[in-house]
């Protein structure tokens, strides 16, 4: 009864927030009206062969040709826009052939400067991967480690979609949850619970920082760490509650998040770890395996499997098909994802030698995905 009351209160609060959500477009906007958008650019744009692409909040802006924009610049874009509307709200605004006007550099607040610095770092890291690995291994490791999917060869991206493995690069939430779960699982066997939790949080913080600390990554990090801490403190019920409370607070703070694939995947992956993880463990213990094999599975495969199963419906919903090969491919590649993440992070420090060691593992993953995709 009390649960129902809480739900009702949440839904009505959310409804009110949703109703009064402001639109990013002016109220007198029509199909062919020219819209202006001014923003401080925090990260260097992406450059395709013929376009410069700027992403800023819900805006996706494409400029013809090569237009360098230094992070920290205040710029104004003008052009005709195509808004994407979901459930009656503008979730994304696409401006093609935009005209750009520079308004100089802003002095910038501390958070802005930190974001700019992280953007620089991330660019340098992606560059390091690109200089040490060939394609598509470079963009695969960049996608898995940093959630960057720009510049991935189209045929390989399609192969990821076909094999139902796009989530390894599409959602940082999935990665955060899996990494933290694996890290804690392993650490729990070696050090005390307190240290293991510390290590898990440390891992998440490092991940959030190197993934550029964008809103979506921070969100996934907070949710993942809160719930996992509670879980590993031996309070699974608390952990589950914490997951829904943190998801609820985030939704009230930013209602459009409800439609965000990354958010949905984060929630689904964490829910999978908390609800399905223990069940898979019970199921498998009845099959009867040696304790050594079981311990490996418990630490490594089960979290991955649980997160995968839970995210499957979300992937199905957004990416259309989940083919019959998807579970097989996921099973073949997911166990190595934490390893690839760790080693890709190693490339940032260890350079070329580390890249050579990582290459065979990435080549294996590329091979599997191309074979089935």
């Amino acid at each position, binding site marked *: 009864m009390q649960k129902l009351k809480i739900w009702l209160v949440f839904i009505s609060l959310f409804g009110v927030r949703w109703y009064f959500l402001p639109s990013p477009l002016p109220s007198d906007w029509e199909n062919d009206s020219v819209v202006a958008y001014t923003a401080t650019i925090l990260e260097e744009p992406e450059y395709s062969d013929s376009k410069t692409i700027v992403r800023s909040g819900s805006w996706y802006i494409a400029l013809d040709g*090569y237009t360098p924009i230094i992070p920290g610049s205040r710029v104004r874009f003008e052009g005709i826009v195509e808004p994407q509307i979901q459930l009656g709200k503008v979730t994304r605004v696409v401006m093609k052939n935009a005209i750009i006007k520079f308004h100089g550099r802003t002095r910038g607040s501390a958070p802005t400067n930190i974001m700019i610095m992280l953007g620089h770092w991330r660019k340098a890291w992606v560059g390091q991967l690109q*200089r040490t690995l060939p394609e598509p291994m470079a963009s695969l490791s960049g996608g898995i480690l940093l959630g960057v999917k720009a510049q991935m060869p189209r045929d390989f991206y399609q192969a990821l979609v076909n094999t139902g493995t796009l989530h390894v690069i599409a959602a940082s939430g999935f990665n955060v949850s899996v990494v933290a779960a694996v890290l804690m699982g392993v650490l729990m066997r070696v050090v005390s619970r307190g240290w293991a939790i510390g290590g898990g949080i440390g891992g998440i913080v490092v991940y959030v920082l190197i993934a550029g600390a964008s809103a979506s990554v921070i969100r996934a990090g907070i949710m993942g760490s809160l719930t996992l801490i509670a879980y590993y403190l031996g309070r699974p019920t608390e952990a589950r509650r914490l997951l829904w409370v943190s998801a609820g607070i985030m939704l009230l703070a930013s209602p459009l998040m409800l439609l965000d694939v990354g958010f949905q995947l984060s929630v689904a992956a964490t829910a999978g770890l908390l609800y399905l993880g223990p069940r898979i463990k019970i199921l498998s213990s009845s099959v009867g395996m040696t304790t050594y094999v079981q311990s490996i599975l418990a630490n490594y495969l089960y979290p991955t499997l649980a997160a995968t199963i839970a995210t499957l419906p979300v992937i199905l919903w957004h990416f259309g098909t989940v083919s019959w090969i998807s579970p097989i491919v996921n099973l073949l590649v997911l166990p190595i994802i934490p390893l690839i993440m760790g080693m890709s992070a190693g490339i940032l420090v260890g350079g070329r030698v580390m890249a050579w060691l990582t290459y065979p593992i990435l080549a*294996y993953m590329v091979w599997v995905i191309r074979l089935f995709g």
Partner: protein
Amino acid sequence: MKKRGYYLVGMVVGLCIMVVSQLPGTHAKMVMCDVGQGDAILIIKGKTQVLIDGGPSSEKILSCLEQYVPFYDRTIELIVLTNTDFDHMNGLSAVVDRYQVIHFVTADGVHSSAGLDKLIKKLAINKVIVGAVERGDRIVVQAKQGLDKLEFSVLWPPDTIEQYVLVFSDQMQSVEREQILGASAKRGDLNERSVVLQLLEDNKYVLLTGDAGDQAEKWLVAHDSLPMVDILKVGHHGSKYASTQEFLEIIRPEIAVISVGEKNTYGHPTTETLDRLSKVGATVKRTDQDGTIVLEL
């Protein structure tokens, strides 16, 4: 500790297998990358790699390099840009960004484009040595720690205006660059300023013609003692204004490769050119039909 040891051994074994499987053969290889409508030719000999043009998109050229350059070799000794048309140039920015490119050479057939601005920036950031080539130059390419040498002769264009190639320097003011590019573009058909290279490798002649057409061919026929060639990179994607009968009669290519996109809007390769090639008995290979073409030299 034990487990970690297994991981490391596994990785090292994996690495060894990958290295051995990607070791280049003893002979030089010419790879005509399938980049759609455009040109990108990779020539490999041992540790030495030369890339002639980069095709229209970074994605296609990078995927070709992934397939044919061993993963542990991240150096390309030389890039030759035959001309600054986008279908030869646009893929190069990504190559310069991702590989250590030692030298970059081109001639004076330059014209302004967004792709050129980007390439200039990337060359400067990555500190690539840029040079101009002209008829009579000999280019010897050798990897730093390798014995394998590739030798090219530059047959075309004559009298490259070095000032035009200076647009590749990022020291130049943009106003001055625009003036030069404007002046260059006024000289008529810039395809005729394409770099034409001849490679002699293991007694085989390879002629790489870029986008050069009938004017360059006519001049070469009149002034040069052209050898019979084993492999011809057909000029300008098989356009009817290149590969004249007179020219083909002299060089009599055994294999003629055409880099061309499927269903391209230019009508390349033209039936006229294909007829002329078959008249001299050349075996024609086309990237739109055969995909990436690999020829042992």
